[in-house]
Structure formats: structure tokens, C-alpha cells
């Protein structure tokens, strides 16, 4: 039995989760928008930390739900039938492979420069995992119950299923592509070409003409030889405010240290990621706002009317049959219902003189349950 207090607690928790889901979607969007828009590192850091916070929150949420279901021996039911798999995919992997490593880099800062290459590759894969956050949209499908046309349980289930499939397949495809892409013998991409060009140009550097080199190489930020700075594109304050640990890479060629901006590559990826994000959000919106009403109007509404007609003695409304859907099985059934069942019901009612009342015992519970 769930007490009133427990019920209130649960509804508060559910409300909090729904709020967090909407916020995390906004955060996901802003994270990419911040890179594209060239926002300051401080703002981007706040967004990264908040992303980590959300992933932590959703991981705890998943673990609580999972163990709570496991205690009731319903872990399988939770994972497979109550969208537990969405909770899983959109929490633990994100924390372990995306926001967790990011936080490590953010807080360990410059000391990890040398390891950045490895981390960067992990992050490339994690970028694909990050799309899994969008799966959380599916969790809030129940919020859309209140929208027009989605009152039917059947409509909600079908729309939720098809939306889940579309989002899941898109996310899985993106994830798989990002996993197998590095292993494919394909022509080098823009990032690879840039990297090779950079290396060739940098190898020719002999200590003079650093300004010309910087002009030829727009990603070049700093050239150092030992402790001496031979060239710097910006003031140090600019680097501090605009560059985070993921925004540049370090190369040691000969006796020189080169710091190169990764922002063009990151912006490319952010644009790609944003495009996928917008694509999936649009898909979900189209399914919810266009397909869902279509399903309700052409399937669950006629079924609902017929169900009421069968169940309620006084309900005699016919099903409206749109001419373009008249060959649909549901409307063929509705035509039979209109043509055969309702007239028969009327005749039977007249013959049997069956009693019917709109009043039910439930509606007068107040007087029946009043204690003396």
C-alpha cells in the first residue's frame, strides 16, 4: 500500500525527473551552441559541469529505480517493459564515457596535456553516446498525455513505441557509425587533411618567419622553444578566457613546441551533433504532434466510440466515417457498428424495456459512506 506521504514524495520525484529531462535537453543543445557561437570557456565549463551533474542525477535515478524493481523481483519487467532500458542507456554510459572523463580533464586541467590525444579519441566515441540523452525525450511522453488527441492508452503506447524505435534506431546508427568509422579504409576527412597539412608545415619551421607560418596556418596559436615564446597569436588573458583543455593540442617537433587550436574541428563536430539533435527532436515532435493525432483520429477514436456503444446502454452515437478512410479495417468495423449494431441495440432496448440509469453507486458514495 502506498501512503499519501509516499504518493506525494513519488509525484515530487517524478516532477523533478521530468524537469531534469527538459533541462538536460536544453543543456545538450547549449553545449554545442556554445562551441559554435564561440562562447567563453567559463560558460562552457558551467555547461559541462551541469551536464555531468545531470548524468550523475540520472545514473542515481536509474540505480534507484532498478534496485527498487529488483527488490520486487521486477528488474526484467522494469528494463524491458517500463522503459528501464532508456533510463540505462541515457545515464550510466554517458557518465562513464562522456561527462565523467570530461570532468576529469576539466579539473585536472593542463597537467593532462600529454594525455589529451587519448582522451580526445575516447571523447569522439563519447560524443556519439551523448546523443543517447535524446532518448530521455521518450521518458516524457507521458507529459504529452495532456495534449489534445493523446488521451487513449492505445494511442499513447503505439506512438511511444514508434517514437522509441525511430529515436533508438537513429541513435544506434550514429553510435555504430562513429565506432566503425576509424576502422574503415576511407579517404581522409577534413580533420585528417588538416592534421597532415599542419604537421608538414610545422616540420619545415626553422625558427624564423613565425608570423608568416601563423598566417599560413590559422590554427597555430603559440610557438615555443624551451621557455621562450617565439610567437603567440593572442594575449594570455584571451587564452584563459576562451580556451579550455579540449580546445587545443600540443605538438613537439624538433626543438619547438607548437600549440594548435582544435576549435575548427570541434565546431565541425558540434555542428554535426547539433544537426543530429535537431533532426531527432524534429522527428519526435512530428511523431507526437502529427502522427499521434492521426493515430488517435483514425484508430483509437472510432474504437473508443464503439467501445462506449457496446458498454453503455444509453450511448448511441455513430462513428463518423471519413470517406478517404472508409476501406480501413477499423472503419469497415465502424460501418458495421453503425449499420447493424446501433439499430439492433435500439430495437432490443425497445423490446426488452431494459432498465438503465446514468446514476451509479459510485456517484452517491458520499451519502452511502456517511458515518452516523
Amino acid at each position, binding site marked *: 500500500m502506498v501512503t499519501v506521504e509516499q504518493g506525494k514524495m513519488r509525484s515530487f520525484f517524478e516532477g523533478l525527473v521530468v524537469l531534469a529531462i527538459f533541462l538536460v535537453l536544453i543543456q545538450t543543445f547549449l553545449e554545442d551552441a556554445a562551441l559554435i557561437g564561440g562562447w567563453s570557456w567559463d560558460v562552457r565549463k558551467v555547461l559541462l559541469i551541469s551536464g555531468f551533474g545531470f548524468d550523475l542525477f540520472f545514473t542515481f535515478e536509474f540505480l534507484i529505480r532498478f534496485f527498487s524493481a529488483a527488490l520486487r523481483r521486477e528488474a526484467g519487467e522494469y528494463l524491458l517493459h517500463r522503459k528501464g532500458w532508456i533510463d540505462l542507456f541515457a545515464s550510466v554510459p554517458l557518465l562513464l564515457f562522456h561527462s565523467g572523463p570530461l570532468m576529469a580533464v576539466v579539473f585536472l586541467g593542463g597537467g593532462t596535456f600529454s594525455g589529451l590525444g587519448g582522451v580526445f579519441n575516447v571523447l569522439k566515441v563519447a560524443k556519439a553516446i551523448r546523443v543517447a540523452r535524446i532518448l530521455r525525450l521518450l521518458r516524457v511522453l507521458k507529459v504529452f498525455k495532456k495534449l489534445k488527441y493523446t488521451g487513449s492508452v492505445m494511442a499513447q503506447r503505439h506512438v511511444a513505441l514508434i517514437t522509441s524505435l525511430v529515436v533508438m534506431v537513429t541513435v544506434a546508427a550514429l553510435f555504430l557509425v562513429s565506432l566503425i568509422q576509424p576502422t574503415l579504409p576511407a579517404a581522409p576527412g577534413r580533420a585528417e587533411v588538416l592534421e597532415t597539412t599542419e604537421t608538414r608545415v610545422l616540420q619545415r619551421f626553422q625558427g624564423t618567419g613565425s608570423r608568416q607560418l601563423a598566417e599560413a596556418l590559422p590554427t597555430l596559436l603559440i610557438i615555443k622553444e624551451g621557455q621562450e615564446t617565439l610567437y603567440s597569436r593572442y594575449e594570455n588573458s584571451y587564452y584563459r578566457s576562451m580556451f579550455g583543455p579540449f580546445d587545443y593540442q600540443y605538438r613537439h617537433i624538433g626543438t619547438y613546441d607548437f600549440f594548435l587550436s582544435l576549435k575548427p574541428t570541434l565546431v565541425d563536430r558540434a555542428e554535426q551533433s547539433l544537426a543530429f539533435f535537431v533532426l531527432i527532436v524534429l522527428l519526435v515532435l512530428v511523431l507526437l504532434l502529427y502522427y499521434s493525432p492521426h493515430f488517435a*483520429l483514425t484508430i483509437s477514436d472510432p474504437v473508443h466510440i464503439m467501445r462506449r456503444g457496446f458498454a453503455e446502454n444509453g450511448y448511441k452515437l455513430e462513428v463518423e466515417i471519413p470517406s478517404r478512410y472508409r476501406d480501413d479495417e477499423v472503419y469497415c468495423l465502424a460501418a458495421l457498428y453503425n449499420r447493424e449494431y446501433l439499430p439492433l441495440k435500439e430495437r432490443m432496448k425497445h423490446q426488452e424495456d431494459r432498465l438503465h440509469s446514468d446514476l451509479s453507486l459510485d*456517484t452517491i458514495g458520499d451519502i452511502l459512506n456517511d458515518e452516523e
Partner: protein
Amino acid sequence: MSSEKEKAEGFVRHLLENPALRNQTPLQKEEQLLAFLELNARALYPTLSSSRFFPGKSWAHIRSMLISELFKITDFTLKGYMNRFIVEQLDMSFTAFLGLPRVSQEEMKTELLKLTVQVAHTGEGRRALTGSFNALSYRLSEKYIEQIYQTRNYIRFELEKVQRLRMSKEELKHMLKVSLLLRPAVYLVSGDGRETSSSVRRQRGSFQPSVADKVTQGLAERLPHFPEAAIRSGVESNISFLDNSRVSATGRLTLLLSSLANEYKPNMQIDRGAVSPEKSWFSVARKNYRYFGYDIKMIDELFKIAAEQGW
């Protein structure tokens, strides 16, 4: 004893105020409550026989008390409505077109009111009055006659050319109202013209045309100042059009409007994807026209009107 009556009245009033019965006419509410008591006797008895209500009384006793109070409440409302409607709103001037010498409207109204009260006190008549009462309350004759006159189709032709009712639209509306009020009066008079308590209702659809003349005569004796055509219209509304194709147009229209109004629920919530209530009713009636003795052509026209008006 009076305390028991007060409790019974209180219980009945509580039920009548239930939101599920909102917007229903007194007779509809009465039918709903009667059915409710029958259907839920077992569940209600433990509460109603408790010390809070009628301790130690049998269900038959309790039921009879409740029904008696229910009838009193309905009668009070019904009488008030009928009085207001017949005396203040009904215009009997249409009788002049039916070849009746000038008679005081008051006399006709008094006769009609008396007859209606008598009908309401016969079991079957009271039940049959529901459709007529609802049709009057919801002003069905007004709204359909308006449209019938605008569309100038079969029904108007039947009224004006066949039945030769060359009266104004407003007068025709009042004639239909009188016809609706007289429709359940057949339960007061048997086929041989004597008073009856037999269930004519169960014979609906097989009310023989031969009986109609005798019943009309019997009613004419009770309504001496009424034109026979008006009485006949009400009586004929109980005859199947398939049994007698000479049933007057007003009689056929009375039958349709009364049947439509019988379970009429104004302002009902229409489910998305459902046909509007009156259009649905006429559509079903169209398929059952043989069974209920309706005029199929009239149904077709009324169906179109309901569809066009979104009723």
C-alpha cells in the same frame, strides 16, 4: 412518520441533484431514479435500512416511500411547467384553421391541462409523456419546423399540400406542441373508448389504425372544445406509418420528435470522431423505420437538417 418522509425526500433530492442528471428534464430524472432504485436495490438496502434512514423497514416499504416522494417532487415541477407552458406559452389560435368555430383559448387550455395531469397519473402515460415533455422543453418542434420551412421539401409539402395545413409557421409549431401533449393521452382511453390502464405502450408500432378512431372519439369527449384534427394528430402519432399510410404529417412528425426527445441529452459531450447526437439518432431511426413505423422520407429530410445544422 413525518421524519421518515423527510428522510425519504432528502435522499431523493440528493439523488436528483447528482451531476450525472444535470440538464435532464424532471421526467427523465424520474425515470433515471426509478431505474437506479431497481438496479441497485441490493446495494442500497443495507444503507437505507440502517439507523440513519429507515431502520427495520423492508425494501418494499422503503422503495414505495422513495418512489412516492419522487413522484411528488416530479409532479410539483411538472405541474408548474405544464401550467406555465399551456397557460402562458401555448397559442391555440391555430385551431381556427382547423374549421373550429371560435372557442375561448382558456377553455381549451383548461381541458388540455386537466388531461395532461390525468396522463401524468397513469403509469404508462407518465412514461410516454417523457418524450413529449422533453420535445417541448428542448423546443424541438420550433427548431425543426424553422428548418423544414426553409428547405421546402417533402415534409413541408406533406404539411401544406397533403394535410392542407395552410397556417403560418408559428401556428404549425403550436399545433405540433398540442399534438405532442396529446400523444400519450391514448393511455387514458382504450380501444372501445373507455378508460384504460392496460399497457398500450407495449403495443407501440402495432397500435391498430381501426382503434385510432375510437380512441380519438374517446379523447374528443374529454376535450369537447378541441378540433378533431388536433386530437387525431396526437393519436395517430402512435400508429405505424407502414400500417397506415394515411397517418397525418403532423402525426408522423410528432412520433419522430417525441421518439428523438425520449432520451435526449442536451449539451452532451460528443466524443471526437462521433456523429452528432441528433444526426446519429436519425441515422439509426432510418435503419429501424420499419420496426418503429416511421416515415422514411421524413427521417431522410430531418437527417439532412440535423447534419447541416450540426445537431
